[in-house]
């Protein structure tokens, strides 16, 4: 698995503090929803920095999309968000990962639980499902529970709402730092009641994908198992505070 220089085709705003990079990767072998790539930056003096980013685009997409959250005193994300522009080269390596992946042919209900930027690999799964034919989609009901601090931290909001309308995806949001009426969602940490509302009972044998910061992932995974879900059907990916 070697490093390839991808070409930046587009850089667009995704949320208040995040950008989506669209890349043309020569000889891209294809990928599965949930996988990630490594990104490497090398300075003229040889100094290197490397980070992993989940792939936001579905396997069906010819171009690779990465959504990068800009961390203020980070080393890599400010470069990707502020400096990189169309036409630049960016070294990537991948795709990587074989555990936290989903294919629409894995029929059965799917619960997606995202904390913060943990939404990215789950978005690839939603987009992948949206591109599948109607028969396969019908076999894989999908429900998303997405937790962020504020409304401005949500990625892909309009696209998610469109998927809810057009694709029969269920989506619920919880904004943990905002108070408000519960018209548009929850305003608290994810708990048993929330997971029961948005998910399926264990008898339906759903697969759950939980992605985000470690404390959220571990709390949600533990709660799902306490609710009676088979631990081998609760898949987790912990994100670190990378900059």
């Amino acid at each position: 698995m070697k490093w390839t220089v991808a070409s930046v085709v587009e850089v667009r705003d995704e949320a208040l503090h995040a950008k989506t990079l669209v890349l043309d990767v020569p000889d891209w072998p294809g990928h599965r929803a949930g996988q990630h790539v490594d990104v490497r930056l090398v300075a003229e003096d040889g100094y290197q920095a490397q980070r992993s980013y989940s792939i936001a685009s579905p396997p069906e997409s010819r171009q690779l999309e990465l959504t990068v959250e800009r961390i203020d005193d980070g080393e890599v994300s400010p470069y990707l968000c502020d400096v990189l522009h169309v036409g630049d080269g960016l070294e990537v390596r991948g795709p990587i990962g074989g555990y936290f992946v989903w294919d629409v042919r894995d029929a059965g209900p799917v619960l997606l639980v995202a904390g913060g930027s943990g939404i990215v690999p789950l978005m690839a799964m939603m987009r992948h499902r949206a591109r599948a034919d109607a028969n396969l989609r019908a076999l894989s009901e999908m429900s998303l529970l997405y937790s962020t601090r504020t409304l401005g931290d949500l990625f892909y909001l309009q696209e998610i709402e469109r998927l809810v309308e057009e694709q029969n995806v269920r989506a619920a949001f919880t904004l943990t730092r905002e108070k408000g009426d519960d018209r548009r969602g929850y305003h608290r940490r994810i708990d048993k009641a929330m997971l029961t509302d948005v998910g399926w009972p264990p008898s339906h044998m759903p697969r759950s994908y939980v992605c985000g910061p470690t404390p959220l992932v571990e709390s949600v995974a533990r709660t799902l198992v306490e609710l009676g879900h088979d631990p081998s059907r609760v898949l987790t990916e912990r994100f670190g505070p990378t900059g």
Partner: protein
Amino acid sequence: MRLDGNAAAGQLRELFAMDVTAAMATCGACGTRRPVGSLLEYGQAMGVILCCPACAAVMLRIVRTPASMHVDGSGMAMLVIQV
């Protein structure tokens, strides 16, 4: 600060020449069998340290120095990879 085996996937791929995050690993200390992607990862910038989620025993350690790769798999009793 802990992550999980997914964070080590790139390094493990360098070692095994294939993805092993879905491979089933058996803990040498307590016998628990889990996918590599679900093992707890602690080393981060210093190296890869994968621990058993059930008993916290160290299952796999990897350090990459400029000249070498040191791998200690003595805590892993078995690794089964679907090919």
